């Protein structure tokens, strides 16, 4: 009965370093979402996967951000050449079925990874 887990919980990087953030969704969940939450703000959508397919990456702020979910379960968000403005909490969420249609599917959130870029 594990929920969504993320690792690491905290990451400190020097400006220019590459980082990789991991998300383990709830087993069997089709949809996976990444959000970025700046201090004192609400989460902002980054990207969406349905199984292994990345169907929406419209929220990724630059081409330094890259996400993958190669086997349709675990996902990794990679940020290359980190900048100070990348400092934020990165939240992952999963839901049981795919996006679209009229039915609502609850998203279950992980605890987030707090990234600090010095």
């Amino acid at each position, binding site marked *: 009965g594990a929920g*969504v887990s993320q690792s690491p919980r905290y990451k400190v990087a020097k400006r220019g370093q590459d980082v990789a953030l991991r998300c383990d969704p709830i087993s069997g969940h089709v*949809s996976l*979402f990444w*959000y970025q939450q700046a201090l*004192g*703000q*609400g*989460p*902002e*959508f980054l990207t*969406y996967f349905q199984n292994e397919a990345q169907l*929406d990456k419209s929220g990724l702020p630059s081409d330094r951000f890259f996400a993958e979910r190669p086997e349709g379960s675990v996902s990794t968000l990679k940020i290359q050449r980190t900048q100070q403005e990348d400092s934020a909490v990165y*939240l992952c*969420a999963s*839901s049981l079925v795919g*996006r*679209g*249609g*009229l*039915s*609502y*599917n*609850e*998203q*279950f*959130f*992980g*605890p*987030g990874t*707090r990234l600090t870029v010095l």
Partner: protein
Amino acid sequence: SQQGEEDPQALSIQEGENATMNCSYKTSINNLQWYRQNSGRGLVHLILIRSNEREKHSGRLRVTLDTSKKSSSLLITASRAADTASYFCATDEGVNNNDMRFGAGTRLTVKP
């Protein structure tokens, strides 16, 4: 970009009092949801209200939705210290259900 805006930004009350938080949004929606976030934690889903509903209850929570004013309110009755958290509204819009847009949140502090 964020869709919803909550007010107040911060609210401090005594235990036992009621807390009311408001959310306004800009475009047509399918659903509006309220989430809670404890410090350093992920978001927990509280309640969903559909665009054709006007009011919904869940335990000590009451949510209203006024689509003509593009606004929603969350009322927490008989507040407890454990209700201390940030509360966010999230709307989904357009053809993609689950494509949520969050507001900046209301920071609620309930003093024992």
